[in-house]
């Protein structure tokens, strides 16, 4: 009986996202932004070699960052705050691996548009009842906490018609964490195979996208791309619950258009408010 009053005591704690942006933690950074207009600079090659996952490439003095590899250690923004900046924007999931590389490569937009249209056609039938089967394919354990957090009262994904299901036979979405460990190759493939059509695969976190810091090895397959066909990538190490929610909504076409800028103005606004002088993360050193 006392639990009843206790359950009501706190009122509503649930986020308004995706209807409106959530004013989550000022301290939380879930992506790195590269200034597209940075000065052409030979010194950036050194930053690239010091990136622990090789996420940074420099071409003719211009830097690109692969969010599918970035583990958000903040080293680049510490070395070159004029070019790289840790940013709290969480709407960073994308359709198509190449979209994780920023600033954007424009050349393959036609192919990407086709991928997107194909995904949109596939998920049309799913509407507002999305069942997710999660599979851990060699995570570090933190990803599971963030996925499980989606069902807590703060994120409460059931309100959006999103449910986690035990059986792959009921599942519409396969949410995969981890770097594709050798032992999980068969179980993952089997789970994918027995899911009914249409089915969508989300690679949750940089481990799933690229293998992350462990990468490839005798027991690590460098991400899940070679194991199952991935539709949506959620960056982060681990991805935050909001990042995951964005990825799920993106994958099934449930993202309200007005709340999904993903890049640009809302991100700039948030950054301006929080870090007026670029990244403060390592400045105290």
């Amino acid at each position, binding site marked *: 009986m006392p*639990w*009843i009053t*206790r*359950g009501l005591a*706190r009122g509503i*704690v649930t986020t308004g996202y995706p209807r409106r942006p959530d004013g989550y*933690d*000022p*301290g*939380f*950074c879930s992506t790195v932004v590269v200034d597209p207009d940075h000065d052409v600079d030979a010194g950036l090659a050194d930053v690239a070699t010091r990136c*622990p996952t090789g996420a940074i490439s420099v071409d003719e003095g211009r830097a690109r960052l692969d969010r599918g590899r970035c*583990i*958000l250690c*903040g*080293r680049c923004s510490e070395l070159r705050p004029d070019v790289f900046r*840790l940013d709290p924007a969480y709407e960073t999931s994308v359709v198509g691996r190449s979209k994780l590389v920023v600033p954007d490569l424009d050349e393959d937009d036609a192919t990407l548009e086709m991928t997107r249209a194909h995904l949109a056609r596939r998920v049309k039938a799913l509407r507002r009842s999305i069942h997710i089967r*999660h*599979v*851990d*394919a*060699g*995570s*570090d*354990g*933190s*990803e*599971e*906490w*963030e*996925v*499980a*957090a989606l*069902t807590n*009262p*703060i994120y409460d994904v059931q309100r959006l018609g999103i449910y*986690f299901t*035990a*059986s*792959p036979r009921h599942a519409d979405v396969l949410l995969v964490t*981890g770097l594709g*460990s*050798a*032992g*999980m190759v068969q*179980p993952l493939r089997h789970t994918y195979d027995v899911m009914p059509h249409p089915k969508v695969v989300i690679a949750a976190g940089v481990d799933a996208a690229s293998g992350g*810091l*462990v990468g*490839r*090895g*005798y*027991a*690590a397959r460098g991400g899940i791309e070679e194991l199952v066909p991935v539709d949506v990538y959620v960056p982060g*190490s*681990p991805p*935050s619950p909001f990042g995951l929610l964005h990825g799920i909504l993106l994958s099934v076409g449930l993202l309200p258009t007005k709340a999904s800028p993903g890049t640009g103005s809302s991100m700039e606004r948030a950054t301006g408010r929080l870090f007026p002088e670029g990244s403060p*993360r*390592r400045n*105290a*050193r």
Partner: protein
Amino acid sequence: MTNETTTAQTPEAFISSVTDRVNQGNRFCGLFASPRDHGTRLLAVVATDERLILDEVVLPTGVGEYPSLTPGVPAAAWYEREIHDLYGLDAVGHSEPASLIFPFPPGSERPRPGSGEPLGAIEPDTTPLPAHLSGEGVFTIPYGPVRSGVFESIEYLVETPGEDIPYLRTRVFYKHRGVEKRFENMDVENGVLLAERVEGVASVAHAIAFCSAIERIVGMEISAQSGMVRVIHAELERIANHLDSTLRHTEAAGQAVAYARLTTHKERVLRLQSQLCGSRFGRGVVVPGGVTAPPRLETGQLLAAVTELESSIRGDCRLLLATPSFVDRLRSTGVLSPELAQLNAALGPVGRGSDQMEDVRFTRPYAGYRHLGHQLLEPRVDGDALARQYIRLEEMWGAFHLIRQAADELDRAGSPRGNRWSEVVEPATGEAIGWAEAPQGEVLYLVELDGRRLCRVKPRSASFHNLALFPATFPKNILTDFVFIEASFGLSIAGVAC
């Protein structure tokens, strides 16, 4: 090696020396292999009340076996199986010599972490295990690796005549990532990032253990202020983990309101962690030589947030322990007897629920712990899931207490000299062991360093050590107790099978 190491001339002398130390009442911490120029070195770590004692022996190249330590020291069982997999060395006389960490196909090359020799992709040999029990109506329920819910991958093979669980086996290789091999040749700055990902839910403890090994090799001290910052993040991590174990109990017991409230509290702890450092798991804070930065919140704000959290968590937990339909599910469930816990040197809350009270935060203090007061836990001897739950709750209150003290100390001391939160780590060559008390129990890091290059890093999580004990708690329990026993162990499979 900074600790004193006894080098044995023969494997037999090595085994008898380690066995004697354990028989004298010391705690067995682990058995680790490292490549050497002309063979493989075995290192056994044993803890007295206040220090570590090390024994080593080198097996020359060409020698593929050594006498098993397990008959005299049962806690060594999983370590020998791990060495069998990763180094291809057989422990002769081992009661269950099957592979554990990764079933390499027969004749396959082994990774030998630390050797620096590359190894291509290998397919595990996934032949099903034969049943252990036989009898009328006994069958095996394979549970996992893909499980019903959001869990890490692991397979439990439950052999049962229908309701009781007389025998259970775990298979952990599904998640093996080859992390030890990955550490080879990394520099120390990248090494700490990888240490944070060995067992992601205990990132801070792993980073502390790794860094303190480095600092020990270099022979440096971190500033008192950095030590306090490490304490704050490590204790927040402990609270989040203990809440996680508790909320999984409430979920299994069908306590919907308690579950909803505890998941909310856990989320608030992770958010506080991210407010302090920018990462919900405290990543990027601990670095060799200190910490990257002080907490981003003012002391007053931090204390207010912590006090508010503690009072709401305490209120819910008090009510939870007064809810019979919750307590009844935990009482006498998954009993680990103090005798068995001692024999297998159980760690962390699992050990403390069975009268193994050691906590390395206080017996071998590191970071800021030596300067902080701590409450002694009341010994628990029941060894059931309820005892482990009580221990976790008391550790949470202790964690809040430590955070408050550390925040006050930090406030009083101000910034370190020159506002340098981390000292320069000079290149050094040598070997040392670092440790930390993770929420799951003692984490050890064996680190061999050459200048700035890591030659061999062997993380040993408490999850690895304790999971070996997990099957022993099942006799006299029934299938529906399974979730409670699993949650009450509170382990991370990533840390077991890294």
